[in-house]
């Protein structure tokens, strides 16, 4: 394959044994079944980009395209990314931290979650590799993003879901014309079937055979954070963990910026957040283990409910190497944190956002994150997607007759209560 056809990518490389593979739709090493990751030619990238060249480009995640796994220009999701990094002073005051920022992927384009980053990379690469059909198995955000981005790119899409998924979540995929298939059975069986389908049919299964490319899209969140902070990595970044992939890729993203000379090496710490009802990685981290034990998920944070996380081992390694930590929060703590973020910063996050904010609170209170430091919290999805989790926990509207007197009485009552 010529340099022209592989962009700045060098090969796919096994994370376990380092064996290299061609840049195709494959995801595990044939020898030890270790996961494959994209390796890049950083010397060439260093010569090709600078802060100035990046600043001159459109404000999307593709302004860092040399560091993303596509050979040419992106063809899917050209508008994705460069979401706001908000200085959250009111929340900082509540949490007792000097400097706090929210990276708000709840407003990512087009489907209001960070999955648009990974999906636009996976689908752009799928088109480069000649695929016409894309697929995924998902209970929410990933399905929506694949369906929407495939529709806009003219790709055929198959979305596999557990058959008992709430109808509201299915509509968010059906509306884009995706073929949605509900699979009856336990999670493990559904998971195995999806892995088999990915192997049997010549499709781009975004988080199976396209996983090495797909996962790299997460790095763009780290690039954006660093640029939005004036080209520096924050001291502490708190990331929600499902498979653990986002945490490892945020770390890789900061490291790459150092490698290509865009930021100084400040040794940023990356912390992981999970829901107590599905906390294999945080439980292992707190126990000082370098492996996790699989669990059966039982939490309102459905987008993080992976009991056997594929990148759990690597997420634990990153936290160990950056001397960071992990923690987890209960469903009630998740709801409280969603409300706290909404009431202080006007950001309505999905349950995963509640997990991250709740864990931030715990890490600051416990002194694991010093109060005089600077923290970035990653919010990865929009609260409109998980209304059911909070709808009975945020009060009710006041009802009055169409009478000014009644309204004034209500106001007086409210003032009395709040006095």
């Amino acid at each position, binding site marked *: 394959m010529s340099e022209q056809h592989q962009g700045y990518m060098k090969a796919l490389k096994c994370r376990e044994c380092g064996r290299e593979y061609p*840049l195709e739709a494959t995801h595990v090493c044939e020898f030890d079944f270790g996961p494959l990751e994209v390796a890049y030619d950083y010397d060439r990238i260093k010569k090709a980009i600078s802060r100035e060249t990046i600043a001159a480009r459109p404000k999307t995640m593709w302004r860092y395209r040399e560091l993303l796994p596509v050979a040419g220009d992106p063809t899917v999701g050209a508008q994705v990314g460069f979401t706001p990094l908000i200085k959250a002073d009111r929340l900082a005051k509540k949490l007792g931290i000097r400097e706090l920022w929210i990276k708000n992927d709840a407003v990512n384009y087009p489907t209001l979650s960070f999955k648009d980053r990974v999906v636009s990379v996976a689908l752009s690469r799928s088109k480069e590799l000649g695929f016409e059909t894309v697929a995924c198995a998902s209970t929410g955000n*990933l399905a929506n993003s694949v369906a929407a981005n495939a529709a806009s790119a003219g790709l055929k899409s198959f979305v596999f879901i557990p058959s008992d998924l709430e109808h509201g979540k299915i509509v968010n995929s059906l509306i884009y014309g995706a073929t949605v298939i509900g699979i009856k059975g336990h999670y493990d069986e559904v*998971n195995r079937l999806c892995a088999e389908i990915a192997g049997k049919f010549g499709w781009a299964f975004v988080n*199976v055979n396209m996983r090495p490319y797909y996962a790299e899209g997460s790095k763009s969140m780290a690039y954006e954070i660093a640029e939005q902070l004036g080209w520096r990595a924050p001291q502490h970044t708190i990331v929600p963990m499902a*498979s653990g992939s986002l945490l490892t890729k945020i770390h890789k993203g900061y490291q790459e910026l150092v490698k290509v000379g865009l930021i100084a090496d400040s040794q940023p710490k990356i912390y992981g957040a999970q829901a107590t009802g599905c906390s294999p990685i945080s439980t292992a981290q707190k126990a000082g283990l370098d*492996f996790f034990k699989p669990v059966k998920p039982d939490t309102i944070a459905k987008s993080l409910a992976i009991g056997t996380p594929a990148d759990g081992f690597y997420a634990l390694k990153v936290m160990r190497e950056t001397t960071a930590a992990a923690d987890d929060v209960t469903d009630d703590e998740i709801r409280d944190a969603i409300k706290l973020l909404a009431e202080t910063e006007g950001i309505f996050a999905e349950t995963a956002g509640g997990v991250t904010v709740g864990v931030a609170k715990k890490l600051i209170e416990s002194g694991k994150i010093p109060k005089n430091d600077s923290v970035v919290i990653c919010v990865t999805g929009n609260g409109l997607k998980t209304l059911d989790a909070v709808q009975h926990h945020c009060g009710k509207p006041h009802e009055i007759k169409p009478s000014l007197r009644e309204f004034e009485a209500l106001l007086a009552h409210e003032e009395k209560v709040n006095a």
Partner: protein
Amino acid sequence: MAKASKKSATKTKSTTPTQQRLWLMYPPKLIKQPFIWEVGHKFKVITNIRQASVTDEIGIVCLELAGPRDEVKAAIKWLEKNKVNVEPVEISAIEG
């Protein structure tokens, strides 16, 4: 330039030769059980270990199972019945 493979979706039969790449996870009390030997004797499958890690806390084995499809499926069912956690190598194929 590597192209997408155009595999045809041929109908799968119970005898279709199958290869499955799996992670087996044993809880501590089952670590001493010779499940992989037993699977090879009870079912018409070839077992091929690619990685393994056994500690006091957990046993993890990366295993390739090959054989007729119904035998491979039955072997997986038998392992699960014996409380071994069986996942494809692509463990989190279903995401949120």
